[in-house]
């Protein structure tokens, strides 16, 4: 199995993912990893509809870690979408090895400060990113395929 991309994007499966990235990555399997969404049939159906024809699984963190460390997806290209850096930490805690995470969208909410046009964070997000760096995960900011990759660690002052 090849994890082609792990993307942090609070919009999860949406236009940038389906129309933007999927035709570039050509994933055999798209995984939306989110405990809350995986527990709601309505949400699962909504995001499966949004993924159009791409093979999609909507899984909890535990299920995602198990699937990715088992043989089921051998020889498949996998594209993983999560809403928050905290989800990535939880995947690492369950044994998943990741070298790079792409931050594609963390949108404005009250209490969050602007990093660039598509990244708004609070102190908790910053701590999570620092932890990911400590654990050897490179952080890249890139919303759409034509966007130049930005070194997020530098942008956040974590270097």
């Amino acid at each position, binding site marked *: 199995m090849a994890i082609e991309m792990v993307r942090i994007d*609070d*919009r999860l*499966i*949406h*236009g940038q993912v*389906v*129309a933007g990235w999927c035709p570039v990555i050509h994933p055999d399997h798209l995984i939306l990893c989110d405990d809350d969404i995986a527990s709601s049939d*309505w949400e699962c159906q*909504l995001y499966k*509809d*949004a*993924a*159009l024809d791409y093979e999609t699984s909507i899984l909890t963190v535990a299920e995602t870690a198990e699937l990715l460390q088992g043989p089921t997806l051998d020889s498949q290209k996998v594209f993983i979408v999560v809403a928050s850096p905290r989800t990535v930490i939880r995947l690492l805690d369950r044994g998943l090895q990741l070298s790079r995470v792409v931050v594609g969208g963390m*949108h*404005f*909410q009250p209490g969050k400060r602007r990093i660039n*046009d*598509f990244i708004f964070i609070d102190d908790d997000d910053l701590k999570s990113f620092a932890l990911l760096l400590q654990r050897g995960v490179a952080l890249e900011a890139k919303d759409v395929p034509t966007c130049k990759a930005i070194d997020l660690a530098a942008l956040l002052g974590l270097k």
Partner: protein
Amino acid sequence: MIGCLLLSHGSVAQALLDASRKIVGEWPNVYAFDCDQVAANLLYEKIARLIESENLQDGLFILVCLRGGTCWNVAARISRDFQKVAVISGVNLSILLSFITKHTKFDFNELAAVLIEDGRRAISQLPPSGE
């Protein structure tokens, strides 16, 4: 009154509204929002406030640019939570003009079918393929 909310990425929604004003004039029950930068839950709240503050008890059509996109996702949640809200994806100017010129002539359910039919009929090719 039945209302119409254009909801899009970029300035598509506002541009469609501007274009329609040049063709059929200004209508008080047509609104345009974009879904960029702000988090999805804030967009949901903005639409919920619109429904509650405007006189839209006869229904609301949310016309979104892209099926599967964030606008569509948020509109689907509004449709789940409010009575008489329908979401139509793949908005084009013809659907909007159809809404403006026909919304007083049909009830909500009939109008949904009319808008989709008019929107589909607007997509055509010249010269016809094969000629």
